[in-house]
């Protein structure tokens, strides 16, 4: 009789474990199912594209944020980088660069994108240097760059909006709007970009030494360093990558609106953190998946858009979002406990 109990326990708990592991996915299906019943027109192709476009912006930031959080850090500056990069893109489209000699350098769309992205990576580099070289805590370092980048964005236009970013055919910048509004094979460019960045990040995390090192640094920084992992380089990479992702979002928003406003991207960092956490990324570092984060971003986005379509007050939406995030973390804790127990049982069954 005693032999039955231990045999039965692992199978039931591993079934539960599978369910918990896929919880973000389950949550996604639940919200999808709920809104397709409750909100008419929710489950249409047109709406799917709209929702995805909303989600994409947050997903970009959340992907970068996931890497940072896996190393045990945090990047609060992404929202401000979005704003700064939107202003940089707007400035370049409108004015080009003026060396102050009576003439100016103008750029085509590709060059504008490149420079904007480099600005984002540059801010990420500053974050990384502050954290690795000067030993500033990530929270504080990125809080500082949050203010600096936002201030720089406001200074660039004196707080005004750069309007009418239509570009100029003579400079090859008239295609600027294509980034945010164009389509390839009927699917918006920005969704293609999300797919590309998502696949790239996922590949890095699973199939490159760099990815493995990111997890190792978050799991045990000292141990990783003693194993020959170049901890500082890994940290530099994650903040630069996060800056890169934020720059893409700034570029896309400026292009979509054909205008850039210095307040663009305020509080975006919090949504990105929420998506990463919802997707199973552990704030203490070492755990998280790019796929999970993207699903997390979709759950948050669909929840928001679906509630709007149902006519729920936006104040309630905020409350619901908060509850969902807290629930996600509570379930995550339960999963960790169960997972540790199942692994211990397996090892015990294997007979030390």
């Amino acid at each position, binding site marked *: 009789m005693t032999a039955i109990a231990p045999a039965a326990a692992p199978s039931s708990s591993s079934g539960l474990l599978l369910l918990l592991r896929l919880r973000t996915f389950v949550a996604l299906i639940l919200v999808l199912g709920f809104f397709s019943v409750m909100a008419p027109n929710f489950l249409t192709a047109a709406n799917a594209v709209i929702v995805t476009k909303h989600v994409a912006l947050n997903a970009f930031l959340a992907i970068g944020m996931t890497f940072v959080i896996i190393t045990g850090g945090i990047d609060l500056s992404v929202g401000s980088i979005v704003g700064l990069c939107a202003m940089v893109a707007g400035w370049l489209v409108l004015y080009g660069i003026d060396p102050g000699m009576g003439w100016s350098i103008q750029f085509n769309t590709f060059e504008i994108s490149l420079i904007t992205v480099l600005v984002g990576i540059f801010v990420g580099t500053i974050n990384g240097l502050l954290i690795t070289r000067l030993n500033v805590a990530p929270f504080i370092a990125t809080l500082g760059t949050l203010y600096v980048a936002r201030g720089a964005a406001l200074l660039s236009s004196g707080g005004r909006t750069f309007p009418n970013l239509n570009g100029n055919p003579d400079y090859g910048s008239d295609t600027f709007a294509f980034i945010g509004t164009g389509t390839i094979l009927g699917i918006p460019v920005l969704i293609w970009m999300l797919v590309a960045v998502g696949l790239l990040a996922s590949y890095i995390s*699973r*199939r*490159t*030494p*760099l*990815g*493995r*090192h990111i*997890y*190792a640094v978050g*799991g*045990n920084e*000292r*141990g*990783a*360093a*003693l*194993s*020959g*992992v*170049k901890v500082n380089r890994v940290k530099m990479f994650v903040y630069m990558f996060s800056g890169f992702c934020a720059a893409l979002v700034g570029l896309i928003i400026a292009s979509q609106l054909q205008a850039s406003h210095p307040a663009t991207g305020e509080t975006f960092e919090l949504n990105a953190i929420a998506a990463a956490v919802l997707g199973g990324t552990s704030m203490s570092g*070492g*755990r998280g998946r790019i796929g999970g984060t993207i699903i997390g971003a979709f759950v948050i986005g669909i929840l928001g858009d679906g509630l709007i379509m149902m006519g729920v007050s936006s104040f309630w939406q905020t409350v619901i979002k908060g509850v969902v995030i807290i629930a996600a973390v509570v379930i995550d804790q339960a999963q960790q406990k169960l*997972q*540790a127990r199942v*692994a*211990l049982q*397996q*090892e015990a*069954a*294997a*007979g*030390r």
Partner: protein
Amino acid sequence: MSAEPPIGLSIRGGVKVYPGTRALKGVDFDLRMGAVNVLVGENGAGKSTLMKVIAGVEDLTEGRIEMDGREVRFRDKADAVKHGIGIVFQELNLFPNLTVAENIFIGREPVRGGIDIDREAQRRETRALMQRLEQDIDPDTPLGLLRIGQQQIVEIAKAVAQDARILILDEPTSALSAHEVEVLFRVIAELKSQGVGIVYISHRLEELIRVGDYITVLRDGTITGARSMEGVDIPWIVRAMIGDSSKDFPRTEAPAFGAEVFRAEEITLPREGGGYTVDHVSLSVRAGEIVGLYGLMGAGRTEFLECIMAQHPHATGRFFVEGKPLTERDVAGRIDRGIALIPEDRKRDGLVQIMAIRENLTLSALKRFTRAFHLDLSAEATTAMDFVKRLTIKVASPENPVSSLSGGNQQKVVIGKALMTGPKILLMDEPSRGIDIGAKAEVFRTMRRLASEGLGILFVTSDLDEVLALSDRILVMANGRVTGDFPAGADAAAVISATAPTASKGAAA
């Protein structure tokens, strides 16, 4: 000889079982008042467990504690304190940011009206305590500014302030200078004359003989000798400590050493506040040789290994691998040159607990499976499985987190990780710490096998048995310097006495 001092506390048939090990196997221990009761034994012999039982930190599994003829049970440490038992742990439990007086009264501050701390009373009592201990320490000094020896005195004062009739000192002199040791001995003599029963744990045998009145020797959880200190000499203690039968990890074949694989020259690591943690250490290891680096805690052995692994940028000196100077400044570079470290603290330094067994095994050697930037996961999994088999790591699945393994198997994962880098010299810091006796033997067999395959091994240990049984050569370190160099089969007493060179304790104070 006058009448024997009274027995203040005794343990009868004390048994303490931890999961997997019996730390105490039926111990009878008498603690005499107004005397220094010396307790000696190897690491893991059960000294600390016995003291934790007396101090109420741990509860006996079997057996009983008697005080003044009545059986007592301590629910927790506070309960033991109420019975007049104070303990000064090896690692001081003090707050460097608070003053001496605040430290002494932490957790039981005298208050006025239930809220306001009566600082004047604190100060007054602290001053009285310091007078009693004949110390010139101002109650208002922040503790962090005191020398380590004075901090120790403050810790003792804290115990005395709680009217301790029994005071346990766990290796109190390990961090003290010769002058500070004298001060401590004066304090001990003072307390003794006031009728306090003192339990004194130390590895320094000369010190024990000097200060002790009664001696108890523990080995593997049993008491192997208990008597009055009269007539006790170092050979007697050593015999009682390690027994006549040496544990067997015999060499299977005659050692065939190759060329020198590793040499360190004049390695020096300055200590904060003067002196050296590692003091001009030079040594060399040949291929196929196991060199044991023996010494007490704080002798600088771990720091020396850390110097080799580029953990101390301020260290000076030269390293050579196979005769060529080691110029790489970072860990990855040194691993590439064939150095591998198995750190003392597995949890903190050796493993990434939440990562899978496979991922931990390959963490240092990912280059082996990488083309350009692409990681070949199937090659990685194959190699990881291969190492699991070679080192007989017992795992259900290499995908389980490493934290699910027992200590011995975790240690093998750390060894596997080091071996996967293809090292020429293996540095092992306390390779048998925290693993049970069976796993220990297996780790030692693995070390022998690796050495016979031509690897040079430098291992640090505080276990005399281990160093005697396993080493082809024994180096002893004390106070940052190499103080002894013995061939295999050296005399145990000679090795022990090299760990505490009495003359070298410069009066740094």
